[in-house]
């Protein structure tokens, strides 16, 4: 009787443990090396952002990051720094971002936050900053099914795809502009107001099939005002172990 009970309890414990074991093979089955969506939540002021945000540039920005359970590394990276925190407490982590004058406090120096957990989960968020000086080129950006007016810059996160590009991101201006983008990213297509002067293409409305990872595009008008468009294309939203019911 005693022995049977012992065997029963051991089997019970083994069974319970099995149900919580993640199956490594079921993670990323279709994307061996996916670019993950920026989805690590954080709060600035009273607004909660789900991984991606465009904020006005400030001398100090208080960011409350919602740290996942069992986080072992929490990175804060910009174009000029890496702040690393080991084993932060789960819950909210307060980070005060004070950009260095003339190094980080300028156009296009994003703040990237990354959390890595003990189980190998990877979470990240990306924050772009706009100067909002009122002297930038104004444009309308089409991002994830919405047209958004913006002055000087916009940051759009949507689904990307290698080579041919993913979901299109669009931008349009009141007058003709010239444009430039990096060679490693999908090219901009001119949709309206398209002409060419001395071998340089001009247009009023453009579209790009969003590439994978970060891509930066810039536009300049006749008054030399600039609009900066940054896209972040992801190929997977899966950044945690799949829930038990989805395991094979």
């Amino acid at each position, binding site marked *: 009787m005693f022995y049977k009970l012992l065997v029963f309890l051991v089997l019970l414990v083994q069974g319970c443990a099995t149900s919580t074991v993640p199956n490594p093979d079921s993670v990323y089955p279709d994307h061996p090396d996916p670019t993950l969506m920026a989805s690590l939540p954080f709060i600035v002021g009273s607004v909660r952002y789900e991984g991606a945000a465009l904020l006005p540039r*400030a001398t100090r920005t208080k960011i409350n990051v919602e740290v996942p359970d069992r986080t072992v590394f929490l990175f804060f990276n910009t174009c000029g720094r890496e702040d690393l925190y080991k084993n932060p407490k789960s819950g909210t982590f307060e980070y005060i971002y004070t950009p260095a004058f003339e190094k980080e406090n300028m156009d296009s120096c994003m703040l990237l936050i990354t959390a890595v957990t003990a189980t190998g989960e990877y979470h990240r968020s990306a924050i772009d900053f706009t100067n909002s000086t009122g002297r930038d080129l104004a444009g309308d950006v089409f991002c994830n099914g919405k047209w958004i007016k913006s002055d000087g810059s916009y940051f759009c996160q949507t689904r990307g795809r290698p080579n041919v590009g993913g979901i299109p991101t669009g931008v349009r201006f009141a007058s003709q502009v010239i444009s430039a983008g990096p060679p490693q990213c999908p090219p901009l297509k001119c949709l309206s107001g398209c002409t060419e002067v001395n071998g340089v293409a001009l247009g009023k409305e453009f579209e790009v099939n969003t590439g994978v990872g970060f891509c930066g595009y810039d536009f300049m008008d006749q008054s030399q005002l600039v609009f900066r468009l940054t896209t972040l294309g992801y190929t997977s939203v899966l950044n945690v172990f799949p829930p038990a019911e989805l395991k094979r």
Partner: protein
Amino acid sequence: MIALLLPFLQLMLKLVPILYQIKVIRSEEELKEFQRRFKDAINKAEGNALDSVDLRKQHKENIDKLREDWKKVWGNRPMPPPQEPIPDPIPPSTPSEITIKGPEEADAGQTFYIEVYNAPANAEVWRDRRWKLAEIGGRTKVPLIFMMGGDPLTIQIKIGEVWVAEHKMIVNERKLVG
């Protein structure tokens, strides 16, 4: 019977976490898989760390190209006037004012500090400057200079070494709204 089983159940409770651990990492292969996954996550994090540097380089190269292209397209033409007048920001010599209500527990005449978070980059904020509360629980005007509006600001007030109050507000272009 229950008395006989009690020590055994206590032993089992101690064994549960051990058995759980044994089960979570069942084999060397599985351990290697977890190590690979953790290393993969670290690699991704480290790759992500340099994305900001790369992106800045992309935009800088774009701007250099646009300046060259601009000369080809518009370089020989006079610069057009701005399409619409741009309102001047608040001159730095005429500060806006913020009215801060003193905390109930503070004495009149007690000094306090202010700290401002999420202020625009071109805002001039006086830090480490002391202000006197007009009266207990009263209101004291503190001049601040903000050039532009933006997201809600958070102003925290410190008396001695203790943060005693927090105000959230929207800064419009020309005035502060508490």
